[in-house]
């Protein structure tokens, strides 16, 4: 009943399945939103799939946060050393850019980090 080719098909499909699950694992680690914090507390969450420019007002002035093509960056900031601007585009869940003098930070979050909202 089982012929050689059947084992081949079964093996190929199993391999495909393993690849699919690995891809799923990688996808789950992808970021889906940007958490904007001011003075250390969260002010807004922005979805990464919508391109937009968000402006946060800190003690030194305006910090511009740009979201484009699933990535986010600090586009402009009044901090003297511009560390957070030089960090460039953030792509992965957990990536953080902090503009300490202006007390603004952005963090990328994925489905995994959002877990605590489900647990409570």
């Amino acid at each position: 009943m089982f012929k050689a080719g059947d084992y081949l098909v079964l093996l190929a499909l199993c391999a495909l399945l393993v690849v699919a699950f690995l891809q799923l694992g990688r996808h789950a680690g992808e970021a889906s939103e940007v958490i904007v914090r001011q003075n250390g507390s969260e002010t807004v969450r922005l979805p990464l799939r919508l391109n937009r420019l968000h402006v946060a007002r800190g003690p030194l002035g305006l910090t511009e946060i740009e979201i484009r093509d699933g990535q986010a960056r600090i586009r402009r900031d009044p901090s003297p050393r511009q560390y957070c601007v030089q960090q460039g585009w953030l792509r992965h869940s957990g990536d953080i850019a902090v503009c300490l003098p202006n007390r603004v930070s952005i963090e990328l979050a994925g489905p995994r980090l959002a877990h605590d909202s489900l647990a409570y």
Partner: protein
Amino acid sequence: MTRSPTERTLQASADDHRIASLAALAIALGMVDAAIPSPLPGVKPGLANIMTLFALHTLGWRAAVWVTLLRVVGAGLLLGSLFTPGFWLSLGGALASLLLLGACRVLPSRHFSLVSHSLLAAQAHLLGQLLLVRLFLIPYDNILLLFPPLALTALLGGLANGLIASHLVQAHDKD
């Protein structure tokens, strides 16, 4: 009463009768499918496809197409889901797997049995449905994240149905 000149009588051939009885069995198995509780939408054993495979191997691809389409419409009528999204998904999956079964005829039967056909058709069924969902019901790529778990259940279902169908074909060939 005088016979109308345009009246025609259709003669049902022996194959038509076989197709009809296989379709009836497929509809009955489709009811069993619908009655089995499912942990996730989209997870189904697909027992009705045993009849498609049986028709494919005893009567040929055209008969398999007939049995499947009759089953999809008949089960839709009995479940009250005719022309609902669920019906279109079932039709989409059925057409995708029938196309793949048609393409499977190039596989040499010396090396590939009905089990291969069942395994491949189960995946085609899933892909056809997911494509339909992505295009019309939930136009968002996240729906493709459902593929790995559903593909696993399709693999198991395809394997089980293939084995059952090949037992049936063997029993049929002995008669």
